[in-house]
C-alpha cells in the first residue's frame, strides 16, 4: 500500500515538471494547430544555458533561470518567424520534418557549445534536505520545484484569462477564422504563442537540470513527453496539461518502477490506446487537429 502511495507522490512531483514542459506544446498545438518537433530543444537549451550562467559565470540561479527562459522565448519567436511561418499553409508533415530539421541543427550547435555529454547542477538549498511524510522521505528540492511549476502554471493561466493578449490567444485557439474576422492579428498571436511556449519550456529546462543530468541529445524525449502529456490531458488547456502531467508522471514512474526494461513499451502502448479511444485527450476541450 505504502508503495502505491510512494509511486503516486513521486509520480506527481515528477509530473509537475512534465506539465511545465508541456504547457507551451499544448498551446502551440491548440492555437497554431501544429506539432513542433523542436519543442524539446527549448527544454534542453534552457537547461544548458542555466548551467552555463550559474556554474561557469556564477550568476544567481534565479536570475540565470529567468535569462534562460527569456532567451528560449526569443528562440521560439525566431523559429516561428523564420521557419514555421513559411510552410504553415502546407501539409502538416512539412512542419514536422522542418521542425525536426531545426531540432537537429539546434542540437548540433548545442553539442559544439556544450559537448555531447550531460551536465547537471547542484543547488544549495537552506533547510533540511529531506522531508518526511509518515515513513516516506521526500527531497525538499523536489517539493520546491513542484511549487515553482504550480506557480508558473498559475501565472500562465492568469495571462491567458486576464490580459488582452491572453484573450487574443484564446480566441485563436477556439476558432482561428472568426478570430481573424473580428480583427485579431493572427500572425502576431502565433509569434506570441511560440514566444510563451519557449519561455515556459525554457523555465522547465532550468528546473530539470537541477534534478537530473541533461544533454543536448535528450530533446527528442522531451518532445515526446510533452506530446504524451497533451494526449492524456487534452490540448490547448493549461489545466488539462497540468492534470495530464500529473497522470503521466505517475504512469511513467510506475512503469519504470515495476518494469524498468519494458517501460517504454508500456508507455507508448498506453499512448496509442489513448489516441485510439479519446484523441481529444481525457480532459480535452473536445477539439482535435484535423488536417
Amino acid at each position, binding site marked *: 500500500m505504502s508503495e502505491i502511495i510512494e509511486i503516486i507522490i513521486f509520480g506527481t512531483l515528477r509530473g509537475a515538471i512534465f506539465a511545465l514542459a508541456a504547457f507551451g506544446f499544448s498551446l502551440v*498545438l491548440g492555437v497554431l494547430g501544429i506539432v513542433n518537433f523542436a519543442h524539446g530543444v527549448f527544454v534542453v537549451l534552457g537547461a544548458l544555458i542555466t548551467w552555463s550562467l550559474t556554474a561557469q559565470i556564477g550568476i544567481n540561479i534565479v536570475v540565470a533561470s529567468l535569462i534562460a527562459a527569456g532567451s528560449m522565448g526569443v528562440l521560439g519567436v525566431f523559429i516561428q518567424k523564420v521557419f514555421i511561418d*513559411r510552410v504553415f499553409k502546407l501539409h502538416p508533415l512539412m512542419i514536422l520534418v522542418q521542425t525536426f530539421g531545426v531540432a537537429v541543427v539546434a542540437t548540433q550547435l548545442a553539442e559544439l557549445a556544450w559537448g555531447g555529454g550531460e551536465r547537471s547542477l547542484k543547488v544549495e538549498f537552506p533547510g533540511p534536505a529531506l522531508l518526511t511524510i509518515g515513513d516516506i522521505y521526500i527531497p525538499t528540492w523536489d517539493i520546491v520545484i513542484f511549487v515553482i511549476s504550480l506557480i508558473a502554471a498559475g501565472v500562465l493561466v492568469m495571462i491567458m484569462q486576464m490580459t488582452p493578449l491572453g484573450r487574443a490567444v484564446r480566441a485563436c485557439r477556439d476558432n482561428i477564422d472568426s478570430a481573424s474576422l473580428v480583427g485579431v492579428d493572427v500572425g502576431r498571436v502565433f509569434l506570441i504563442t511560440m514566444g510563451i511556449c519557449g519561455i515556459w519550456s525554457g523555465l522547465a529546462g532550468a528546473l530539470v537540470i537541477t534534478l537530473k543530468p541533461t544533454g543536448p541529445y535528450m530533446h527528442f524525449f522531451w518532445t515526446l513527453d510533452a506530446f504524451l502529456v497533451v494526449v492524456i490531458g487534452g490540448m490547448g488547456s493549461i489545466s488539462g496539461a497540468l492534470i495530464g502531467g500529473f497522470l503521466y508522471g505517475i504512469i511513467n514512474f510506475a512503469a519504470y518502477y515495476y518494469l524498468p526494461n*519494458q517501460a517504454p513499451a508500456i508507455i507508448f502502448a498506453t499512448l496509442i490506446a489513448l489516441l485510439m479511444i479519446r484523441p481529444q485527450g481525457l480532459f480535452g476541450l473536445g477539439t482535435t*487537429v484535423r488536417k
Partner: protein
Amino acid sequence: MSAAIASMRTLIENDRIRLALLALSLVLVALGPFYLSAYWERVLIFVFFNIALASSWNVIGGIAGYPSFGHGVFFGMGAYTCAILIVRGGVPFPLAILGGGAVAGAFALLFIPLFRQRGFYFALSTLAAQFAIETVVRTWSFTRGLQSFDQGWNLPDLGSLDFFYWLTLGLLVACIGSIILMLRTRVGLALRAIHKDEVVAASVGIPCTRYKAIAFVFSAVWPGVMGAAYAPFLVFISSDNVFNISITLNMILIAIFGGIGTIIGPIIGGLLLSIIDRLSWAYLLQYHTLIYGLMIIAVISFRPAGIASWFKK
C-alpha cells in the same frame, strides 16, 4: 539557345527516348562492379537501400497522405526475420528475403486501426508504435535482446560485395517497378483521391480503409524485403542498427528532399542526400549532422515540393 533547350525538352519528353535513356543509365549502373572501387560500390549499395526505403514510404506517406513515422519498424522486422530464419532455421537466403517481406506485411495489418487518425495524430501513433516495438525487440529473449553476451545476430557470409550490389539493385528495380505498376491500376487514383479529400473519396464509392490498408501493407512489404537483404550484408545486426528511429526519419527526409508524392523524387533525394552525406562524412565529420539538418530546413523552407520540382519548370 532557347530553341536548343526546347528541342532538348521535347527530346526528353518523348517517351521512347526517355525509356532509352533510362535503360542506358540502368545498364551503366548495373555494370558498376566492373569499374567502381569497393568504396563506391558500398556507397551505391547504401544509395539503393535508401531509395527503395524512401520509395516505399512515399506510397503511404506521399501518395496516400498518411505520414507514417514508424516505417523503420518494417525494415528492422525484415532484418530480424531474415537473421532468425537463417541462424536458427538454416533457411536458404532467397526464402529468408521473402520471409522478411511477408512478416513485415503481416505485421503492417496490425496498424490498420491507426488509420482512424490523421495528420499529426497518425504520425504520433506510428512513432509510438515504433518505440514500443523497438523496446520489445530490445528486451525479448527470442530476439536476443537484453543478453549482455550476445545482443543481436551474427550472420554467415552469404556473398561477395558484387553479389550484394546486384541483389540490392535488382530489388530496387523490382520495388520501383511494382510501385509504378500499382499506381497505374485504380489503386493509384484511389490513393490520390484519399490524399486530397477522404470524405469526397468515400462519397464516390472508394472504400477508403481498404485502400489505405493496401497502400500501407505494400509500403511495409518492401522495407521488410530490403531489411532481409540488409541483414547479411551488414553481417551483424542488432536493434541499434536496424530498428533505429533514424531509419524511419531517413525515409521521410529523402522522399521530401527529392519531391514527395512523385516516383522520381525519392530517387533524386536518395542519390543526392546519400552522396552529400558521404562527402560531409568524409571531409567535415564534425559538422556532418549539422549540414544534414541545414539542408532539410533549407529545402522545406524554400523548396517544399522537393528538388524534383526544379526539373519540371
